[in-house]
């Protein structure tokens, strides 16, 4: 613990531990990346082929077109973007109201928080039946609504924490200057909170982008998202390593890039604003 007085051995130990951790994180990712460009003949080679002599992009085309990965990708973009926007649009006002006026006291904020931990299986069955009878099943709209609700607790709690640490004085000055409450919210508070809104939205987007369970149950051949395409690779053990790896790369690269971009808000994002980090 004693920061300044680490001996040579403990420094070496630390170095080894970090190297192992990095290897543990990157190793699996390297294997997927390499498998996605490996010719099929190399799959079962012993010893394993660590880098293919003839890399190929053929699996990407197969994953995107033969397995409808591209359709899944497009659906994922549509659903994630719109759900994120809707979540920010509805969540930010609510967070502001909770932070500034303590609306509904602890009960309302606690209720929102509890939604974050509600097991999806508990609501997805009735939602499935409701969607089937209202025509929302297997539509973009249906999944967007579901994802908006599923990300709202995150958005609301992150923005709640953000607004609470913003000074009130500017909004009060605006009120004195003749703004309505609505104007002081839209013209003063929201612009000041914009970095927070952006960060919260990125986390909401990543949550939608990586979500599987709702998409699995609420969509089928039309509105299916990228993660659900992986169902196609189940059961066919042995032949689709390249395709499934290629599709993995297509899905994980954008969300990792976004995640690294908002890295400094990560603690807030993971703890719904409870920890500042």
């Amino acid at each position, binding site marked *: 613990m*004693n*920061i300044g007085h680490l001996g040579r051995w403990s420094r070496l130990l630390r170095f080894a531990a970090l190297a192992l*951790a*990095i290897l543990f994180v990157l190793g699996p990712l390297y*294997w*997927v990346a390499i498998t996605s460009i490996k010719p099929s003949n190399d799959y079962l080679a*012993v010893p394993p082929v660590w880098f293919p002599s003839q890399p190929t992009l053929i699996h990407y085309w197969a994953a995107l077109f033969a397995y409808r990965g591209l359709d899944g990708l497009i659906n994922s973009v549509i659903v994630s973007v719109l759900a994120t926007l809707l979540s920010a649009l*509805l969540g930010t006002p609510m967070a*502001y109201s909770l932070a*500034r*006026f303590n609306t509904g006291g602890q009960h*309302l904020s*606690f209720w*929102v928080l*509890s*939604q974050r*931990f*509600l*097991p*999806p*299986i*508990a*609501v997805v*069955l*009735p939602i499935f*039946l*409701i969607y089937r009878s209202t025509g929302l099943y297997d539509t973009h709209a249906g999944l967007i*609504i579901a994802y*908006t*609700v599923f990300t*709202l607790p995150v958005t*609301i709690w992150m923005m709640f924490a953000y607004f609470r640490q913003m000074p009130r004085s500017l909004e*009060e000055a605006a*009120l004195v200057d003749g*703004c*309505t*409450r*609505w104007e002081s919210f839209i013209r003063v508070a929201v612009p000041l909170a914009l970095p927070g809104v952006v960060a919260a939205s990125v986390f909401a987007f990543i949550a939608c*982008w990586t*979500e*599987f*369970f709702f998409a*699995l*149950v609420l969509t089928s051949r039309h509105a299916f998202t990228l*993660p659900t395409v*992986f169902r196609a690779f189940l059961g066919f053990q042995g032949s689709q390593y390249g395709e499934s*790896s290629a599709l*993995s790369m297509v*899905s*994980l690269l954008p*969300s*990792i890039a976004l*995640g*690294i971009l908002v890295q400094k808000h*990560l*603690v807030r994002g*993971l*703890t719904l604003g*409870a*920890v500042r980090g």
Partner: protein
Amino acid sequence: MTEASTAEHPAGRGAGLAPPTAYALWCDRNFKWLLVAPAVALIAALSIYPLLFSIWISFVNYDFSVPGHDFVGLKNFRQVVADPVARWSVVVTAMLTALDVTFEFLLGLGLALIMVQSFRWRGLIMSILIIPLFISPVIVGQVWALLLQRPFGPTDYLLSQLLGFDVTISWLTSPPWNFIALVLADVWQWTPFMFVILLAGLTAIPPHLYEAAELDGVGNWSTFRYITLPYIGPMITLAIAFRLLDAIKLFDTIFMMTGGGPGTSTYTSSYYLYQVGFQQFHLGQATAGSWLFLILTAIIIMGLVRRLLRAEAKP
């Protein structure tokens, strides 16, 4: 309405402006509720309404193979409770959750302790270590299936080389290896979660505490035990609580890696309910089961999250 005292009649005041309409005044008075209403309505529509609807489903016959929705009393609940697969799934869920959270906590804490000091490349290493958090659990399951699956995956080969004898483990199909594989995938994905939160806690410890301890000649272990741990205590509770509540929902990696198998041995509660509801279409039974599961979860939430809220309100 204490807010009103900050400025009287905030709506449309000012010399030369038309007097506020009754509508504008009403909006202003109910401003805070108007901001909350859309989000609350949407959440209610997709959580309270389905939950109420599902109460009805759990007490009637709702099965795609048996027509009609007759009231059946507690039959659905009894079927779930009597089902050995359901009972086993609770055990599996508890076991996997306990193992996942324990390993993630220990590894996360270890990493955080290493990473709290500043050194060269720290920023880059930080960015690498958090990568798994941004990957879909489905893909994590897929990736680990690729790594472990025989004969394709390199794991058995690497272990053979490392240990010097032939390792032929069927990681995904033979217990206990399939449980180890599931824990491995979860630990890979969620250790960074613990790590990041605990690191934030460690960073917030004022250095003068350590300096004082050093002056007093307190040993490393005692410093850790009596300064570090108590200081990050609330953070530990929070990180474990969050992980616990997510871990008991485990579904995606099961779906991708073992498919609940072999047989039904790796069914978690979520996976069991999914199978009963969406593969066998015993919707009544699945809904009754999901209510039992929900009640179990709610008890944990009540205990943990309430305590967290109180802890958070303090500083």
